């Protein structure tokens, strides 16, 4: 194994561990922080796989803004913060092996696909991918339609959020 692969496996282990902690830990703020750690792990995995641009985007968008929103949301719902409810489902001993079984079967199915086991060395790809990305965004043969539609989607999400939040504020004040 190359050092890079060892780093990758280490990061993957941390990511998985913190993902499990997100759903099993009691305090909501701690869960949110483990979510941040998970997202950070994903960013490092992008980096070790050779996609620096998306690693930084992952940090900027997911950790820098979406996780901040989640932390704000936790602060907003302070009242149910330390509720003394069990964080594990009652039937977890049944569903945990089931999830493992499903995961194993997915791996089994995927492993029959020839490209699954081939390792591609991406660490040597040049850094030109931003230029390509920028070009593809405004290229009629590329992603210009998804790019423009994305703006409409964002606007719809935004208008919805403002509408709901302002209604609540109006009702309270």
């Amino acid at each position, binding site marked *: 194994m190359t050092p890079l692969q060892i780093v990758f496996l280490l990061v993957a282990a941390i990511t998985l561990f913190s993902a499990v902690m997100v759903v099993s830990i009691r305090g909501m703020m701690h869960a949110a922080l483990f979510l941040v750690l998970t997202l950070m792990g994903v960013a490092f995995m992008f980096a070790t796989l050779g996609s620096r641009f998306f690693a930084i985007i992952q940090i900027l968008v997911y950790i820098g*803004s979406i996780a901040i929103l989640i932390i704000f949301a936790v*602060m907003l719902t*302070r009242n149910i913060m330390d509720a003394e409810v069990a964080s594990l489902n009652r039937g977890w001993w049944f569903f945990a092996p089931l999830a493992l079984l499903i995961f194993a079967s997915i791996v089994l199915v995927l492993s029959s696909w020839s490209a699954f086991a081939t390792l591609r060395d991406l660490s040597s790809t040049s850094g030109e991918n*931003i230029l390509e*990305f*920028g070009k593809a965004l405004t290229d009629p043969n590329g992603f210009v339609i998804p790019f*423009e539609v994305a*703006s409409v989607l964002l606007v719809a999400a935004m208008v919805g959020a*403002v509408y709901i939040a302002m209604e609540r504020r109006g009702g309270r004040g």
Partner: protein
Amino acid sequence: MLEKYLPLAIILAFAVFIGFFVVILGTIFGPRRPTERKSAPYESGMIPYGPGTRRMNVSYYLVAVLFILFDIEIVFVLPWAVIFRELGVPGLVLMGIFLVVLEVAFVYAWKKGALEWE
């Protein structure tokens, strides 16, 4: 190509080390004689009342939502900004449409009063 990023990992490791080192330094050398009064929340010498944290104003939440939207906008504008000369007028027009559509949400939030603070 990836080794260009190795220095960043090295300095990150040093920064983490410095942070914890300073905290540990204070723990080793600082005295530790907690009393009930000392570990009460500081409220300018008044007797603390009520819960330490309370529900925050929804305006903060709205700001965070708006921030996500425009953060994503920046992420889309940056790759365009690197090669906009090459893309020329069509690129400019397409980016203009993208920005104008997003600004609809901004104007809506503004008119709805989401940017007002009382």
